[in-house]
């Protein structure tokens, strides 16, 4: 790491690489997020709503809304 940094004289390389890394990750995350199957998204989104019930919860997304 030290060697690498010492030999890189042009420091503007850092922001450039940083931006590229960021955009790659950003695009990957976005693609992944948009491709999540609908029923799974629905299940995930409803997780906070099903917790307070005393009854066992097996599969959230085919049950109704939660007890308040």
């Amino acid at each position: 790491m030290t060697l690498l940094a010492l030999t890189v004289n042009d420091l503007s390389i850092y922001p450039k690489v940083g931006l590229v890394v960021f955009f790659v990750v950003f695009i990957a995350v976005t693609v992944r997020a948009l491709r999540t199957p609908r029923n799974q998204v629905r299940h995930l989104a409803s997780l906070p709503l099903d917790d307070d019930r005393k009854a066992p919860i097996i599969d959230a997304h085919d049950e109704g809304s939660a007890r308040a």
Partner: protein
Amino acid sequence: MEEFVYNDAIVRKFLGATLLWGFVGMLVGLIVAFQMVLPIAVQWLEASVFSGPNGLTAALRLLYEHEWLSFGRLRPLHTNAVIFAFAGNAIFTAVYYSTQRLCKARMWSDLLGNLHFWGWQLIIVSAAITLPLGITQGKEYAELEWPIDLAIAVVWAGFFGTNFLMTLVKRRERHMYVALWFYIATIVTVTILHIFNNLWVPAGLVHLFKTGEMPSAELMMKSYPIYAGVQDAFMQWWYGHNAVAFFLTTPFLGMMYYFLPKAADRPVFSYKLSIIHFWSLVFIYIWAGPHHLHYTALPVWASSIAMVFSIMLWMPSWGGMINGLLTLRGAWHKVASDPVLKFFVIGVTFYGMATFEGPMLSIKTVNALSHYTDWTIAHVHSGTLGWNGFMIFGMIYWLAPRLFQTELFSKKLVAAHFWIGTVGMLLYIIPIYVAGITQGLMWRAFDETGRLAFPDFVETVTKLMPFYWARAIGGTLYLAGVVIGIYTIWRTWKNRPTKYDEPVQRAPALRKEYRDDAGERGEERLQGVVWAGRAMDKFVQGKWHRRWERLPIRFTGWVIVAVVVASLFEIVPLFVIRSNVPSIASVQPYTPLELAGRDIYVAEGCYNCHSQMIRPIFAETERYGEYSKPGESVYNRPFQWGSRRIGPDLAREGLFRPSGSWHLNHFYDPRSVVGQSIMPAYSVFFRRDIRFEEIQARVDAMAMLGVPYGEAINSAPEMAREQARAVAAAIIDEAGGFAEIRVAIWDLVLGRMPTSREEAIEALSQKKVIAVISYMQRLGTDLTRDGGAS
């Protein structure tokens, strides 16, 4: 089916602590707000209302001049208390409540939970004791000294982190809801930030090992950071900004993603958006820190990247805000009647406002105006009072009936809290915006002849008094709202059942083996090409990520990678490339006496009001002199560039105001020298002696960190004594003899008038004020000394 019971007792404890520390922290904030207006008000009372000082004005004076209450010591107590005690306990309340529900599991260990709770409260109490005593590292939001730092690391990562992660590992719900991701990011990033910004050498330990003697308590608590100057500044704002990100933002987003849907009784608007929100925040925030250092001695490339990333932050932040607000789609009618939702709506709206303003303030040209002014304070308070404060109280009002298993005591009182709080907040923020912009414009105003329109700094201070009054009143209202809230919760708690109902929950344990997709099972590894194709296919389908979600440890690993990679990209070049900090031949280490003086400057928290960083901006070099060079800070541990100018910049004070007797009078009573000053008087400097013997340990610790101290390594106390006598003698001569120095000063120093010049010098040279003055006289003089600037 497994049966289990949630641990709500621990949640109730954290909730109570949130309220207690919220009150304390905001009360201290109110006191420091009044300290901005009281000095002039008391002056006016004594001159125009009463004939001179009386009991009332003496009491008011105590409020801003008592050693333990002076602004420089109390302001860090305010910031630490509201951030780490109020917001901190609120975060724990949210995490302990929601994690159990989202994981369908009791918190892993009751013991760790209790250790976490009591450990954290102990840390807060030690902060409340040490900060007013002037025990501080002198870095914003990282003021607590090294033993407390160690305790924080143990309690945060050891107790809290372990308990949380183990709960995730033992969870019964396979999928990890997005709130949990935000909590993970919070825990790991705060750990990293805390550790790397708090690497130090304790002076007392150095002393103990070198001499075998036990140091005094004051010395024992003192440490010097391993970073100096530019690097210290950089690490500090990498920490400071990310503390905002990972202490005041990510856990609160977790809170929003959990409690807002619960209160609205509908799922979050877009779960997909929340994923993008999460990863972009984690990735971008880390880069943004150096925007606190625009136009400083930090290399331009570092602050430029920070600006670009800060502007990019606007996107995910607003994504999050929109996601929060749209969760209420179709439920807006509920907002009108539900006080909890009202708090959340204002909270999320202020999140949007603050995260719009933040990127704007990071733009260099805007920053040139806003930096060091009260604009920053307005920005911070729209975030903390609006976003953090209102999210916390929304959550508390939602939780109280559930945790105390009874009706909320009074909805009317909650509504009163909401309205008083909102009005108070606006009354705080708006005048302080105006104050900040006024200040910024006055500092850079020139008259027709091309000279500074307000060359006297204090003119730009007195102008702000009306705004400071409005802020103090706004703050009072906001706190009044909080008091109503505390009363409401207390009454609710009093109505609790004699024994809490602890419903038994049931859920199946997770099976060890789980595959999303049956087709994947049993497949063999094929040769390279096929494998690569499959990997590609998996990536495109996004399955890689869903796996991590199920594996909290690996997920945590990825968050660490994101944070560390981004950090290294910034930190490594700054630390390894020498050209970042060109050395200047004439910059020498501080003399032992100056070092002692500097340590007093740090301990008193002068940096809360004074910067030491002149930016290369015309208005600034006109006012303060040659702009600051990176090489000038190489011996500054900690750096003291400051972030705010309630008083003028002091980077070139030694050139600007070399007169020791001026400083003597000014420290004794600033208003006797500068009529409208709001700087506190420092009579303690005249009462307390310099501990000459301990200066050796300070020099040794610095030498250990590589400061070339030469002969001072063996004779620091003698050198300091000698210089102290010289400074004292010069002050007395400058004044025209000791009899010309006011009696009140001699009363403090000696208890009477001295009888000879020799006695006067001897007595004065013992006092702390001499060390501080020697430091003031040294400031900024390096460049013009022989062998000068390069």
